């Protein structure tokens, strides 16, 4: 009986530690360096997805249709996955403007990716999109250098 009690106690402690580790006090702002790291990561993910879209667009006549469609869907999914945690965390107080710019850029990237994906799926012309994707990619790169310093 005593051993069962000890077991329960150990389990409780483990649970407590896990809870503490998992809940980084909701609502409190992230530290400056943590925010920078997150912004760098999420912008990197957006660039990565746009880069993939760029490769697809530049070769879309060479790729089988379903393959191009799934590749673009994957690019959207992966950006979506990466941006989730950034969107829900609170930036440091003096970084609100930068945070807004990153969020806006993520939104633009998502919109653009969706547009590319739809156009490719519908076999519509993609020539104009090619240029927008390239520009969006370069803009993200600039923003990344500016806010995240890398």
């Amino acid at each position, binding site marked *: 009986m005593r051993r069962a009690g000890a077991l329960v106690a150990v389990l409780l402690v483990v649970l407590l530690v896990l809870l503490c580790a998992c809940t980084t006090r909701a609502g409190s702002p992230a530290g400056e360096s943590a925010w920078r790291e997150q912004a760098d990561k999420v912008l990197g993910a957006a660039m990565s997805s746009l880069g*993939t879209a760029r490769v*697809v667009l530049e070769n879309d006549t060479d790729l089988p*249709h379903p*393959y191009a469609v799934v590749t673009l869907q*994957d690019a959207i999914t992966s950006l979506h996955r990466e941006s989730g945690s950034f969107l829900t965390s609170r930036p440091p107080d003096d970084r609100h403007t930068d945070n807004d710019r990153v969020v806006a850029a993520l939104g633009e990237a998502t919109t653009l990716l969706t547009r590319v994906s739809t156009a490719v799926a519908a076999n519509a012309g993609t020539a104009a999109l090619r240029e927008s994707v390239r520009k969006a990619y370069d803009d993200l790169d600039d923003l990344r250098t500016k806010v995240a310093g890398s």
Partner: protein
Amino acid sequence: MKKFFGLALGILTAIGGFVDIGDLVTNAQVGARFGLSLGLVVVLGVLGICVFAEMSGRVAVCSNRATFDLVRERLGPRVGLLNLVASMIVTLLTFIAEIGGVALALSLASSVNDLLIIPIVGLLVWLVLWRARFSLMENVLGLLGLALVVFAVALWKLDPSWGHLAHQTFTVAKPGDEDWMTYAYYAVALFGAAMTPYEVFFFSSGGVEEKWTEKDLGQMRANVFVGFPLGGLLSLAIAGCTATVFGPLDVQVDALSQVGLPVGVALGKIGIAIVLVGFVAATFGAACETGLSVGYSLAQYLGWQWGKFVRPDEATRFHVVLVLATMLGVAVLMTGVDPIMVTEISVVGSAVALPLTYFPILVVANDRDYMGEHVNGTLANALGTVYLVVVVLAALAALPLLVLTGMGS
């Protein structure tokens, strides 16, 4: 002539069977992020798997006992059980990743959502495990897996700066924007992907399945020492392709579609068609191998009849394990978990579980009682010992690196 044919067939299947979802994903990721600067790790891993696969094949030939028989005999039931549990977890994870990989590859060909394909893949895997002859399964899937050679062709067609790639490989040049911790994490992942423990269970059990005798030792060695390194070259070609196409754009590879994209860039629709055949064959083959390995290790630990060399109704428990493992794999994947993430975890898990499998093999390969004149020579022992140290280091480093780098992000 017939002998030559057999030899060639064995080598070709070894090449085609070498690459699995772990190799595909990890090499593509590493190529895009680090170029070929981790290429020597692949070489190290391939040499390691050669050393231990040859040893376990030799043990299977000489003693007629497969790996997990020996693990329990030599480590006792307690440590053996720990070993069993750890290896089963890793092998099951790999199994799940491979089934997911087949589904992803098929969804790339059809643009049908992979969640709809997973149950069908599970059913097919189980049917093959239940009905197909062992050698047929090995040969057909191995030969189709050869389609992945298209990565080498694509790399040649992409015509990268070869001097630059070679420079990266031999100077181990870490890209400036990555830190050493991440670099080390991916080194361990690549090593784990090349040296997955299931390959040793499978290779030794396969030796018993195919009733190898001492006459087959030469064939076995040819498969291992020619086939595996050529398979390793395919891994490097994958990394080279993603390095060339994605490297300049800073693209991170986190989907199977990205892994094949460079082939499409280089070779167009035909290239994609071939690479998809390769993906399906390689992951399906590895799904069969890992599924069997789950059954092998459990049955061997408990002394049950295992193997496809007897009729399924003579190894009922073994086949029940296969059914349950397949159902578990499908169930896990149906939760919508990303198979690529499962793959990433499984290769690191492999690195952790490596010493548990390799140590007993090294011990038994030195036992005259089992091996007679075929005990390890000086070279096998020297390499075996060096690798044991490497494998232990990788295992110790794997989990801390996983946590510290947040899975390499």
